[in-house]
């Protein structure tokens, strides 16, 4: 199947909201634009073969001299007249893949004024640099004569770039002489379909960007609401909620472990594409089902909140997918543009306007909101575990260096003459005493991790008994 059709099909059948579909890249219309442009070019004798061979000449020349010599170029195709002084775009290699780190979305955009420029001798009307076949040359010459020296299409070069002027003995006496190419005037080939093409593409890209901003805001609000709701449902001050806290905590823990949109392990720390994220999400749903967590929700409010959570994730998935197919559409259409016109626009296009990173940007933002506004409402065990026993840091002892260990591990360290803090190697273990108990943190842990506190308390007592009476204490205890 041709890409145009595949794209159309995807937009129609993959359940995207109607306003998204409306904002999608209009691939087939852009394609028509290219066709019109091709015939416009053909009318002045610039079929893709002619332009292509010209371009190759320039490239070969540049390669041979290792020097980007503007002088030798018989023609130039500029997307924006005044952009050569723009600051360098970082990560421009990636710009086309949408993985660029630059803030492509906030870059200011100028309207497109693409120009195809040729250079003719001011006096004779001869074309600068040969390499054109006679027929094309004649056509362009005619064209230059027709447009005349007073015609607006003959451009005075702006004085900003003056490569050639440096080897002129004196500044040009009369203003008609181009500073850039003394003795030559630039002639612009009048084209309209290309402006049309780029304006359309540019406005669609900014439309996609606006859509992204809108969606981001909407999802942000949705998550914040859900966060407040979950916070209410799991308020630890109500004893009745204790079981619920454990269920929600487990859901979020599985969620974090599932690494749906981004990898967080040594072997995978990349952003996931739509296909991989969908696969991960599937796995997550499966684990939730297997753990029998849904059944533990008695109140319908909890179930509803979980459904909202699942729904938000599906929306992120969809936005990833939508971004991907649109980006592919953009890359394909630019490729087509070059193939049919040989104007070599793809090389310069990403510098002009970056694809708005619809997918990864949105996913990143929304995922951050999920963790700050939702998951954080229920503290996770991992954030309160002792670095030594990896169990809950109960009772918490805060060393002078501000690192927290459980009291059991502190005692073990002190009896083993481990004087340095295992994390920062400061000598803070040796002088820790009961003053170092963190009362506030203890109250917090008791409130949020009641079951874990009980279990750890029991373990600590058991181990203290072992310290005093030996291993046999443990056996006695378990019999009792």
């Amino acid at each position, binding site marked *: 199947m041709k890409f145009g059709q595949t794209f159309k099909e995807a937009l129609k059948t993959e359940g995207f909201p109607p306003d998204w579909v409306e904002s999608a890249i209009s691939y087939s219309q852009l394609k028509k634009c290219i066709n019109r442009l091709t015939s416009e070019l053909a009318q002045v004798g610039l079929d893709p073969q002619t332009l292509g061979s010209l371009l190759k000449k320039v490239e070969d020349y540049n390669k041979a001299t290792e020097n980007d010599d503007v002088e030798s170029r018989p023609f130039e195709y500029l997307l924006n007249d005044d952009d050569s002084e723009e600051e360098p775009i970082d990560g421009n290699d990636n710009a086309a893949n949408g993985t660029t780190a630059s803030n492509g979305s906030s870059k200011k955009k100028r309207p497109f004024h693409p120009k195809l420029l040729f250079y003719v001798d001011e006096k004779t009307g001869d074309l600068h640099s040969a390499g054109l076949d006679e027929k094309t040359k004649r056509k362009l010459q005619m064209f230059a004569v027709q447009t005349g020296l007073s015609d607006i299409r003959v451009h005075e070069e702006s004085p900003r770039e003056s490569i050639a002027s440096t080897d002129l003995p004196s500044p040009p006496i009369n203003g008609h002489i181009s500073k850039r190419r003394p003795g030559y005037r630039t002639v612009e080939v009048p084209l309209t379909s290309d402006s049309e093409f780029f304006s359309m593409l540019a406005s669609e890209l900014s439309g996609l960007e606006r859509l992204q901003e809108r969606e981001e805001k909407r999802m942000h609000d949705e998550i914040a609401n859900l966060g407040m709701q979950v916070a209410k449902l799991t308020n630890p001050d109500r004893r009745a909620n204790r079981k619920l806290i454990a269920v929600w905590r487990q859901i979020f823990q599985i969620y974090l472990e599932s690494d749906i949109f981004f990898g967080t*392990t*040594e*072997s995978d720390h990349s952003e996931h594409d739509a296909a991989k994220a969908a696969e991960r999400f599937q796995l997550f749903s499966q684990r939730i089902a297997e753990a029998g967590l849904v059944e533990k929700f008695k109140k319908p409010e909890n179930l509803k909140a979980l459904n909202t959570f699942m729904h938000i994730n599906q929306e992120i998935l969809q936005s990833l997918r939508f971004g991907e197919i649109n980006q592919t559409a953009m890359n394909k259409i630019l490729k087509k543009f070059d193939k049919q016109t040989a104007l070599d626009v793809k090389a310069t296009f990403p510098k002009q306007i970056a694809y708005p990173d619809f997918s990864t940007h949105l996913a990143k933002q929304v995922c951050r909101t999920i963790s700050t506004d939702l998951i954080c409402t229920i503290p996770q065990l991992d954030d309160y575990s002792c*670095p*030594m*026993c*990896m*169990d809950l840091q109960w009772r918490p002892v805060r060393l002078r260096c501000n690192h927290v260990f459980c009291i059991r*591990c502190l005692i*073990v*360290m002190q009896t*083993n003459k*481990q004087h*340095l803090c*295992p*994390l920062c*190697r400061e000598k803070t273990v040796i002088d820790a005493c009961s003053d170092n108990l963190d009362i506030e943190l203890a109250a917090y842990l008791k409130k949020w991790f009641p079951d874990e506190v009980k279990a750890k308390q029991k373990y600590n007592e058991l181990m203290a008994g072992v310290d005093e009476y030996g*291993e046999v204490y443990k056996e006695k205890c378990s019999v009792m």
Partner: protein
Amino acid sequence: MALPKRIIKETERLMNEPVPGISAVPHEDNLRYFDVTIDGPSQSPYEGGLFKLELFLPDDYPMTPPKIRFLTKIYHPNIDRLGRICLDVLKSNWSPALQIRTILLSIQALLGAPNPDDPLANDVAQKWKEDQNAAIETARQWTQEHAKP
């Protein structure tokens, strides 16, 4: 004695999120004893080799570091003939906050960056300093001979 929670957690994570190029599997009958393999790092004379090690967690782990040694013969200035490893974090620089995972990563890094100035296998370190190219070549040969996967 029951297995401390920490060892259970470390083992789980090693199984669920293995470190690239490293595997560590506990023995069924002794969960403190691990069979370890490390892939020779690329761009090193150990590239292409698969190195077997044994790792044991003593009773007072993590107060004391894991005991670990190479089972596969290896030509390296910081590893002796018995497979013992000269690595600061396994000795004086051990900290109870370090884990099996971090230690194995350090050993993998040591294969990639031999340090003949802090030797254990003195003769190898000596050769390494005298003629590094020849020593690297020997290390490569040993890898071909002894560490074939």
